[in-house]
């Protein structure tokens, strides 16, 4: 299975201690869903101070897109 960075957090909800249930849109456009460590969810800002939240790390692609595959402009795989 290939792994991709997350492009967007679709939803997160706390589960057991230290974990969250996450739905993430990957850079390939697919959706990963599963439990991840809560410290992977980071509050970040860009160079202009704009705040956002990301899920750090690489996640398994359900369609096994090759690494480097990018979603289309509308976000679909």
């Amino acid at each position, binding site marked *: 299975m290939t792994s991709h*960075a997350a492009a967007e957090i679709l939803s997160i909800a706390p589960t057991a201690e230290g974990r969250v249930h996450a739905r993430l849109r990957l850079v390939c456009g697919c959706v990963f869903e599963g439990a991840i460590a809560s410290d992977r969810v*980071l509050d970040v*800002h860009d160079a202009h101070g704009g705040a*956002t939240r990301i899920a750090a790390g690489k996640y398994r692609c359900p369609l096994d897109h090759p690494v480097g595959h990018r979603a289309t402009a509308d976000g679909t795989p």
Partner: protein
Amino acid sequence: MSDDKEARIVAARLRLKERFEAKSLATPSQSDPRPKGSGPQNRHGMPQLPPGQVIAKGWPVLDLGRKPIVRPEDWKLTIDGACLHPTELDWETFMSLPQSDDVSDFHCVTTWSKFDVPWRGVRFSELMALVSPDDGATHAMCHAYDGYTTNVSLAEAMKPDVLLVHHALGEPLPIEHGGPIRMITPQLYAWKGAKWISRIELMTEDRAGFWEERGYSMTAHPWRDDRYS
């Protein structure tokens, strides 16, 4: 250490500086005339925030899912392959080597960067002076206790900010961040710095490591957005 060995190491430091200084200065993170990114220049002339990155205050734990527990008294580092004096260092020997303090940035390929992390450890170049890489050595494969591997060119690894660290943020490096010893590569994406490092294999040609075999870049230059092969 014997006088002969010390003299050999001093001579090796000079030879390595002569051999790699120009090559390191010619790498993209020091020579790109129009690097991508934003913010003020960092100390090697690149925009502080590489393209596609955001600034994180936390430091998430990213690994292969296995956290090997290696006590300092059990830790060993093998340096072998294309070199004249392959060696194995234990914790005590490693800590007796010249120690370096540095503050550098950390750029993860999964789009976050952490600025101004204080580190303490031993320069990769100091380890190379111990083993004297062969004239044909061009790359290193770094192996870790969890089975992870990653490749790096010697032109990158010989930079003075590439360290094998045992302290971060003023504290002993925790297991989850690669303690007791991990490598850092501030001018490359951070996956090029193996956590729980156990072996440096010197090579005469490049070879892909764990993530590189799975499509990630052989070279990993942050200011070129060089994430994938």
